[in-house]
């Protein structure tokens, strides 16, 4: 890890010189400075990773590079762009000149490809319009576009002929990258380009990006909240906190030897696969408000090393060691006193949490299939032609009391559907779901006359949704939303008691003063706070099982730990079990591991591996789990981004899942038998069952079968919505 690689130390001539760039907004409450005196050079053909939490000013920095700050903000300072030896003052350009620089010299890719494409015109038309608007030759331009698409592992003709909605989220994002490169810019600015995608897709895109960057000699500015994600890709990293750069340096230096206390705390707050869980800690306190930035070093309220000097004067961003800048007076102390969890010498023992799991399952899922008819009104569209999506096939799973089961897999693998089947939010097509031994849907329909009434089952199985923006009704105050469960289940509760309960829960989950929070509308809360309210709402029902559907994925990496800790803490207080759904193996490891739970890996509607957390993480058996682990394993800087250990990036269409083992189209270990026979997951065989022939006893015909020939397989998958 110590030998400097030639590509990362290369610092050519600067393309961008940013000096003292500031962005301010005048607001009723005062001036809000959302980019504060940013000074940085960006060099030719480097990849600069800009890392910061939401509200750290990183997006403003991106906009500033194109002089495209959203009105009414004003941008001051100096931004110089070098084009073939010519120096251009970006802030002094006319609108027309600026328009040319954007796209032709500096292109930008934003998060959420869906909103960047016009849904009514084809992808080809998008390319043509861009070329026309800049008076490029259409024929040559399209030829270049095809090349770019192919470089990004897309089938050029198919993608060009499609409409945006016909492509999966990952394909759209790659098409957008191709579109932004079609005018052959020198610099590509990417603002959270992969945030909406699965980890595996993110990593795959990143590895493609590296190739594209080499091939077209690009300079890339990659902006993200996810430090480990870019660490392997970037040559240099710049960390932003409270609208300023606090640390800039070579990627491996910043990542392995961070000098600013904030960067060190941030690294310890990010869930990963290697560090003992007990050493990951959220950062105390919260990020500052743009109008009320603390005096002196803006990190001082959260910094364990802060003293009077830090409060009085702002530390400059100064060179510490070779080309490694940090804005901290005590960076030397910080390196000693704030221990990084990855490099601690203490033996890495995770105190195994002794699960208090019951003998009898709370919910058991028995041979459950969930199929959807595609098109025409979802469940009710029986006029449409029956395109059956196999969301879940033959799932068997048991949830015990105080249990945690994490279901992981890519979008569209059926993990959410299976989760909803477990909590009776989704009626299975075949199979039975039981609550304490009693058939849930039979009870619901009055077919089964059990002891437990439907009402009680309904109340015992609750859910927290993925998107904090939609989990609360934006028209209702927090208090009103939280009153629902109490009104429904304790109709005789005194309004005063009800209010007390709610305020108590708000206070407990760190939202204080609670009386203030209770009267807010959802838009006045941050994403993390909304998720906490959703958690409170579910807990007020006193449920036995809570389905947490990607409940932390929408939050900044640095806030995820805090939310997961809170959920685990409340599990003890409320005696619930969680079904935790995530595409991110490190979140699953942290959450389920701390409760001695299990991880279930799903692929295309099937559970392919199920076992205790540490076994699945440390010794994954199924080839697909190994791929997921590759996508997550990002704390290792030594191996730079490499090609994914998988054949084909996109998931096959769940309408026509591949015959045999469903993973055979992408499995690096696939052999010819895998095309015909399908392996099954049998819990009777072991405590860590795996649906792969390789884990079968030796005599399985797999070992005599021929490896499949890659040339026969298509590289790209079919369009499905993987957003």
């Amino acid at each position, binding site marked *: 890890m110590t030998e400097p690689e030639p590509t990362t130390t290369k610092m050519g001539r600067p393309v961008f010189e940013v000096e003292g760039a500031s962005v301010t*907004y005048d*607001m*009723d*409450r005062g001036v*809000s400075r*959302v980019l504060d005196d940013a000074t940085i050079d960006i060099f030719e053909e480097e990849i600069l990773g800009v890392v910061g939490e*939401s*509200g750290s000013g990183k*997006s*403003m920095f991106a906009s500033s590079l194109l002089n495209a700050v*959203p009105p*009414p*903000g004003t941008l001051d300072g100096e931004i110089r762009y070098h084009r073939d030896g010519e120096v251009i003052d970006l802030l002094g350009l006319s609108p027309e000149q600026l328009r040319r620089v954007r796209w032709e010299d500096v292109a930008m890719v934003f*998060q959420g490809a869906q909103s960047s494409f016009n849904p009514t015109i084809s992808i080809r038309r998008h390319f043509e319009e861009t070329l026309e608007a800049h008076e490029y030759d259409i024929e040559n331009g399209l030829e270049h576009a095809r090349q770019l698409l192919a470089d990004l592992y897309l089938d050029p003709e198919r993608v060009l002929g499609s409409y945006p909605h016909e492509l999966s989220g990952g394909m759209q994002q790659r098409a957008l990258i191709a579109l932004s490169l079609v005018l052959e810019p020198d610099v590509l600015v990417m*603002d959270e380009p992969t945030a909406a995608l699965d980890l595996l897709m993110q990593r795959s895109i990143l590895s493609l990006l590296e190739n594209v960057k080499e091939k077209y000699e690009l300079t890339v500015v990659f902006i993200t909240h996810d430090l480990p994600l870019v660490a392997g890709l970037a040559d240099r990293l710049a960390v932003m906190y409270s609208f300023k750069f606090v640390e800039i340096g070579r990627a491996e230096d910043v990542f392995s030897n961070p000098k600013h206390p904030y960067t060190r705390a941030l690294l310890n707050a990010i869930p990963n696969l290697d560090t003992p869980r007990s050493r990951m800690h959220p950062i105390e306190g919260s990020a500052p*408000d*743009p*109008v*009320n930035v603390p005096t002196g070093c803006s990190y001082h309220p959260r910094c364990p090393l802060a003293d009077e000097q830090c409060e009085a004067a702002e530390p400059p961003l100064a060179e510490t060691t070779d080309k490694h800048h940090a804005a901290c007076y005590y960076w030397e102390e910080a390196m000693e006193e704030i221990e990084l969890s990855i490099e601690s010498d203490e033996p890495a023992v995770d105190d195994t949490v002794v699960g208090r799991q019951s003998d009898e399952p709370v919910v058991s899922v028995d041979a459950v299939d969930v199929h959807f008819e595609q098109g025409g*009104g979802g*469940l*009710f569209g029986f006029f449409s032609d029956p395109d059956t999506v196999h969301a879940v096939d033959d799932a068997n799973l048991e949830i015990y009391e105080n249990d945690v089961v994490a279901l992981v897999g890519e979008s569209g693998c059926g993990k959410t559907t299976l989760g909803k089947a477990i*909590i009776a*939010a989704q009626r299975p097509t075949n199979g039975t779901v039981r609550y304490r031994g009693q058939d849930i849907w039979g009870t619901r329909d009055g077919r089964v006359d059990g002891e437990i009434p439907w*009402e009680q089952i*309904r*109340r015992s*199985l*609750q*859910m927290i*949704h*993925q*998107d904090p923006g*939609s*989990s*609360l*009704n*934006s*028209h*209702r105050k927090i208090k*009103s*939303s939280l009153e*629902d*469960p109490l009104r*429904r*289940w304790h109709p005789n509760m005194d309004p005063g008691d009800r209010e007390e309960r709610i305020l108590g829960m708000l206070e407990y989950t760190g939202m204080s003063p609670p009386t*203030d929070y209770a009267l*807010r*509308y*959802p*838009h*006045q809360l941050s994403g993390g706070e909304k998720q906490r309210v*959703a958690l409170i*709402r*579910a807990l007020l*029902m006193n449920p036995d099982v809570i389905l947490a559907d990607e409940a932390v994925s929408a939050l900044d990496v640095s806030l995820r730990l805090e939310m997961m800790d809170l959920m685990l803490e409340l599990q003890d207080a409320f005696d619930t079990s969680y079904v935790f759904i995530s595409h991110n193996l490190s979140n699953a490891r942290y959450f389920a591991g701390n409760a001695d739970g299990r991880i279930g890996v799903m692929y295309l509607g099937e559970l392919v591996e199920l076992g205790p957390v540490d076994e699945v993480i440390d010794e994954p058996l199924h080839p697909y789990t190994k791929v997921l682990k590759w996508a997550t394993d990002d704390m290792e800087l030594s191996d730079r981004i490499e090609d994914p250990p998988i054949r084909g990036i996109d998931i096959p269409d769940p309408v026509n899942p591949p015959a045999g083992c469903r993973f055979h189209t992408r499995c690096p270990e696939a052999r010819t038998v895998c095309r015909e026979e399908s392996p099954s997951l049998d819990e009777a065989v072991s405590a860590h069952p795996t649906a792969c022939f390789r884990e079968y006893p030796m005599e399985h015909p797999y070992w005599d079968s021929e490896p499949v020939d890659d040339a026969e397989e298509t590289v790209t998958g079919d369009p499905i919505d993987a957003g």
Partner: protein
Amino acid sequence: MFLNDWLITPLRVIWDDWRARVGGIIILLYVLMGTIGVVLISEPRPGDGPRLIRPFQDWAHPLGTDINGNDLFAQTVHATPPMLEMIVAGAVFTTALAMVVGTLSGYKGGIVDRLLMTFTDILLTIPGLPLVIVLALVLDPRQPWVVGVILTINAWAGLARAIRSQVLTIREEAYIEAARLMGISTWRILLKDITPSLMPYVLVNFVNAARTVVFASVALYFLGILPDTFLNWGVMMNYAYSVGGALYTSGTAHWLFVPLMTIVVLSFGLILFAQGTDRVFNPRVRARHASQDDLEPGEDDMSGEVATQIRG
């Protein structure tokens, strides 16, 4: 608390927008005219004054008189209560029915949806105006509210369909699923979670329905299809045209013009009001107005757009 949420904050928001303010004042004037006005101004009688005085000539008859010496201002004022009754009845009927049918059908789906929508579609295929004319002739309605309902007899169908399609989108929101999983009753979900998001849309359509009633009634009274049972702006125009020949006689033009202006101003007020008030239902705006006196530092009072951009 309750007062603050349901009265003071909405009023503040309304007052903050000039369109809502002007529209509200216009509507208020008509309501005053229909309530206090009828008490203050005596009923018009033939021979009250000289025949066909022009407006603004004689201050005993500010808007002039018709061919029988009826005071036009008094006629306008005394036509207001039945007109308002008719308008409100029609608008309430349309929106209420559309709301119930649209939300229920969109939220429940399945068999309920198909039954309700089939019925709605049948109504939609019947041409509106002929149906109203036939009903008016057959039923010969005499009460203003019955007239109002007849005039909007199938106007609700289109609205119900539109509401249903909006509910189909809202139904997919996570908070609706959460409410369902909590066992909250359908009616409560419709009332508390779905209706508020529909309100701006419903309000605009309420006003549109009101305008439909105004125009349709005036037209049908003017054409003489509805019986001229009560004093009515349409009937006034009918007389102005048929008796006074107001379209080609300049001496009687004001007779037609006075009820016409009455209608135009009301319609204008309704439009302004609807445009200005959809902000009442925007939680961002509400929050800003509710917290005017207890704004805390750190609270998100930036305009939504800027806030998202900065956060992003």
